[in-house]
């Protein structure tokens, strides 16, 4: 093989280049095809060029479902743009399908006229059979709606990597880089950052590194040489606030947020957790940060996980437990122990499709009522929901701050969509992070275990402090001694005190922030990970100029902003879209006694902007 595979061809053969505002690509293939890797590499390349971006990985619950079946399809969607974007995109402009099963499960989302790139090697008779096709879909007239590029990517890849000495299966495995090279050419980005990455990643296996690099460049050069696509596309820089950026997923952001909280409060972080999809990443991230003094305890079960965190909190650590829906069910009793003992604790629930085991790798927002009410007794706790992947950082910090300042468990809701999805994160200056002081009492003369401060919080006296020996527990306490009390009046008073303490968190929550029209036809109220879709939909409706629509996105759901009811009153109608059958709507209706329209989607996928636009128009018109 000549040197051709090791260098990029000069782009003189390129005829046309079209400027686009935004593009959505989906890489889809078998679980073992490396689609997540291809997607993240393209994401970094987009970030490198200054595009705004949002990503959505979509992978099966099975680690390696039978190869070639629809159950084993793994996909990575990437939306990149020269304008501000808030979602990974609705319908897709480009679908890369590495086999028949990937085509079958993803073709419905490809726009009319969109580009479909397929690896013909994934469309042999047995591939078709595994995917459940009786005839080859590549011969189907229906594909005429798309710009289809058929290529034996596998065979091309094997040929391209031959000079590296890598052969057979290992050679074919490089096909994801070949595909990536093609996409780099098509969207006019340099493969060099990925070349660098390959060298670092496979430094210890120079053969494999070389093979992947050859594949990448071969894919790029192939497009250049054979004029496979008549035009290339440019997506320019997006206007962004100046600063240093990194790509961040919600789980990474949450982990960093808690480390930041630990640093800012000068309190060691303790995480008690049991692995569960899609929350395990937070445990994994923090387990690697021991040099921050972070203690991670992989417990024997969900209950031990939260109980260990409660023990660590009692001992004076900033305590955290992370889970998903089924785990939250198991933690209910222990959350109540923290409510009663009034100890700071953050519980992260990365929501997934439920009930029961449900859809472990798919997203949903259906744990809201459980978060708010899923415990015995009158047991209020603050609940905050992160709105984007990068907001998980800030929400984690805020949750920790409230937990400590109000001596209460705080529940942070994220979801599979923002936990695994990624976007650019403007790295904050340490000096811009909120500070919070942790005070542990030391004076035996004034110490009373349940004496409340202005926040309604009791003192956090930690074992090891001379003279402050005291006992706490799940039995009702008398105020302020903390001794056991079965007195009816005391229970009434303590129940109200606990309730009022949580209500007073509203001073942290602040006033309702309205985007769009401050009054008018419709108020859309959303929460959690649907922020991007809902906000984009409202923008789109407002841009059309006919309707007066406002948007309120709730981050704190308990307590609510104190002026929310009066804000709602300024609109004729209210629409509450959420990825469940109406949990926030039920909560708000109950609180305010107002009629509200719901839009519930429980398909394991986020909202499409288009379906929200339709719902907004319909609700106003109805």
């Amino acid at each position: 093989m000549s040197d051709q595979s090791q260098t990029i061809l000069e782009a003189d053969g390129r005829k046309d280049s079209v400027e686009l505002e935004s593009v959505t690509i989906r890489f889809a293939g078998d679980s073992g095809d490396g689609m997540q890797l291809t997607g993240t590499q393209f994401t970094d390349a987009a970030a490198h060029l200054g595009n705004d971006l949002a990503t959505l990985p979509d992978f099966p619950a099975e680690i390696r479902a039978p190869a070639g079946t629809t159950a084993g399809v793994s996909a990575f969607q990437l939306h990149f743009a020269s304008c501000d974007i808030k979602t990974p995109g609705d319908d897709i402009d480009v679908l890369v399908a590495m086999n028949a099963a990937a085509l079958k499960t993803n073709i419905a989302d490809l726009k009319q006229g969109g580009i479909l790139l397929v690896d013909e090697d994934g469309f042999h008779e047995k591939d078709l059979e595994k995917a459940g096709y009786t005839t080859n879909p590549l011969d189907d007239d229906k594909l005429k709606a798309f710009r289809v590029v058929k290529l034996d990517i596998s065979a091309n890849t094997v040929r391209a990597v031959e000079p590296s000495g890598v052969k057979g299966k290992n050679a074919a495995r490089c096909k994801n880089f070949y595909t990536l090279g093609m996409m780099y050419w098509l969207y006019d980005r340099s493969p060099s950052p990925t070349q660098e990455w390959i060298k670092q990643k496979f430094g210890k296996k120079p053969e494999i590194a070389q093979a992947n690099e050859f594949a990448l460049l071969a894919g790029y050069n192939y497009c250049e040489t054979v004029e496979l696509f008549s035009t290339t596309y440019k997506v320019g820089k997006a206007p962004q606030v100046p600063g240093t950026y990194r790509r961040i997923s919600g789980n990474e952001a949450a982990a960093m947020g808690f480390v930041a909280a630990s640093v800012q409060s000068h309190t060691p972080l303790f995480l008690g957790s049991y692995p569960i999809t899609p929350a395990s990443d937070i445990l994994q991230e923090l387990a690697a940060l021991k040099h921050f003094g972070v203690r991670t305890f992989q417990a024997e079960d969900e209950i031990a996980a939260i109980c260990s965190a409660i023990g660590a909190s009692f001992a004076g650590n900033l305590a955290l437990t992370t889970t998903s829906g089924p785990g939250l069910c198991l933690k209910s009793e222990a959350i109540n122990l923290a409510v009663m003992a009034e100890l700071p604790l953050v519980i992260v629930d990365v929501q997934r499709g439920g009930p029961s085991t449900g859809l472990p790798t798919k997203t949903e927002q259906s744990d809201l009522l459980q978060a708010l009410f899923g415990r015995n007794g009158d047991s209020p706790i603050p609940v905050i929901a992160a709105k984007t992947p990068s907001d998980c950082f800030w929400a984690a910090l805020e949750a920790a701050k409230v937990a400590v300042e109000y001596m209460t468990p705080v529940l942070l809701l994220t979801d599979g969509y923002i936990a695994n999805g990624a976007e650019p994160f403007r790295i904050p200056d340490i000096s811009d992070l909120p500070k919070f002081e942790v005070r542990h009492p030391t004076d035996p003369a004034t110490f009373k275990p349940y004496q409340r401060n202005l926040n309604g919080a009791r003192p956090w006296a930690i074992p090891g402090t001379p003279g402050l020996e005291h006992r706490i527990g799940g039995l009702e306490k008398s105020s302020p001694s903390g001794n056991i009390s079965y007195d009816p009046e005391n229970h009434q008073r303590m129940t109200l005190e606990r309730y009022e303490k949580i209500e007073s968190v509203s001073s942290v929550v602040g006033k309702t922030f309205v985007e769009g029209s401050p009054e008018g036809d419709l108020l859309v109220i959303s929460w959690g990970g649907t922020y991007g879709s809902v906000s984009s939909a409202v923008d789109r409706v407002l841009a059309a100029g006919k309707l007066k629509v406002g948007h309120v996105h709730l981050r704190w759901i308990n307590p609510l902003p104190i002026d929310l009811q009066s804000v709602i009153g300024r609109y004729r109608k209210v629409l509450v879209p959420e990825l469940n059958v109406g949990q926030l709507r039920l909560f708000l209706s109950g609180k305010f006694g107002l009629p509200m329209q719901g839009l519930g989607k429980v398909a394991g996928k986020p909202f499409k902007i288009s379906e929200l636009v339709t719902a907004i128009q319909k609700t106003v018109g109805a």
Partner: protein
Amino acid sequence: MIETTPTLPVLSKKDFVSDQQVKWCPGCGDYSILAALQTVLPKQGIARENFAIISGIGCSSRFPYYMDTYGFHTIHGRALAVATGVKAANPGLQVWVITGDGDGLSIGGNHLLHALRRNVDLKVILFNNEIYGLTKGQFSPTSAMGIKTKTSPMGSIDQPLSPLSVALSAGAGFVARTVDNDIKHLTSVLDAAAKFKGTAFVEVLQNCVIFNDGVYDPFYAPDTRKLNALYLEDGKPLTWANDTKGLYAKGFSIDAREMTDSDRSQVLVHDAKEESGTLAWTLSRFAFPEMPVPLGVFRSVERPTYDELMDGQIHAAQAAKGTGDLAKLLNSGFTWKV
């Protein structure tokens, strides 16, 4: 980490008595365990503020309220999980766990296994009265098969488990059994547990005067214990019944019989430090009345504790990477400027 102060005040039992009225039933075995621990703790050379006592739910679990130390009365079965967090967060504390046969072996059985295998430096006292007391008399996981209770009117069909066999199988380093009516023995065993580095598991045979009174009488009353209890002493022959009976090896099993002058020298000798734990495990399987009831320290073998290993990893990570720098962490990986 909290360092113990170099000059310690001289502590006595009264320093560990809280101002709360003890509310166990009159005659309950729990009283003597409370008194024993209040005697043992002042002698450990540890400042009072560095003790934490964690319990679950049940009669025994009211224990922390009566001790003037840091205490946490948690939820059913979960004391060990909470205590693990306390000890991991602050290895400078001496952490005691108070649990019962229901709390520790039924609802909390899972946590017991895992605390023991990890060897978290906790001192666990399991009050075994072979009955549920606080819920008023249902059979427990240690109740004898056939026992008639409110929930087993025709007799329990559950096979009981041996707390000590469970502990040894989970890899416990320190395993002991004592009784609530022999304060001297009780105190010495708790003292040995306090001094052991690692999870120390102590089963106390504790009489419930209301729902299971007299369950241990055949071998623990002052007159019967002389005949049927086998006191374990490290390095001493395994004999009982006023030194008339002894244990002999017989293939893979144990022969418990009268000693003769000629075979006295062949009696097995107790060795709590025996690495494999085979002898301890065999002793834990003894079922009365076919076999005597062993009391004392079955096994005492130290190994690194979970909390010190966790601390060690943190120090190793800090030595290798330097103490965490938040700005560096936030700016790690692929970044770009706008």
